[in-house]
């Protein structure tokens, strides 16, 4: 497709269950980002990939969160032993080149998000 695609769109997990969220970035986009958005708040940065290299994972809230992009295209965000506080929308975004998102002309494109509810 033309945009960033995420699946599943909605996921309900029981506390303690592992979940995997998938992101298909726009074809050819070098940079890929994951953000977490709690209800009523702005998105918060989780991690950043440049091709297959995870260059920044400073936003991952705990070692239960793990992200990968093994072939530099599709990415998976995995959350182990989910807790109720993990309930949020997980947004994936991609951009064409390596320059920082705030740089001139480097627009990042977001997917619609994966809505995770942990019960």
């Amino acid at each position, binding site marked *: 497709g033309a945009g960033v695609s995420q699946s599943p769109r909605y996921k309900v997990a029981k506390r303690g269950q592992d979940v995997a969220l998938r992101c298909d970035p726009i074809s050819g986009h070098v940079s890929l*980002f994951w953000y977490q958005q709690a209800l009523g708040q702005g998105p918060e*940065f989780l991690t950043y990939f440049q091709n297959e290299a995870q260059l920044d994972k400073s936003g991952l809230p705990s070692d239960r969160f793990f992200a990968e992009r093994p072939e530099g295209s599709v990415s998976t965000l995995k959350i182990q032993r989910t807790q109720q506080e993990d309930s949020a929308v997980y947004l994936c975004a991609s951009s064409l080149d390596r320059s920082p998102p705030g740089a001139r002309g480097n627009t990042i*494109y977001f997917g619609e998000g994966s809505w995770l509810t942990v019960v």
Partner: protein
Amino acid sequence: LAKTTQPISMDSYEGQEVNITCSHNNIATNDYITWYQQFPSQGPRFIIQGYKTKVTNEVASLFIPADRKSSTLSLPRVSLSDTAVYYCLVGDRRNKAAGNKLTFGGGTRVLVKP
């Protein structure tokens, strides 16, 4: 980090112009100012980006004064479908480690009434 401050919410009526001002006192020389729009149940969507003076596209205008410590997003003649949260972001290139992340604040919730 280049932090931004914007109003929490604004109400408007169809057909009116909506102006949202964002403060970014610590903006760095090479930083651009970018605005995103987010509808319920969707990811943020790029609206406009600028460096100084004025930028206009088919959706909005962005006014940036000479000192660049603030910017104003202007939405002309809003309709009900413009009801959304609008985020002002500033890229931070002074801190290399932070340079790859966009920092969203709480955004401005704009409600357009009939």
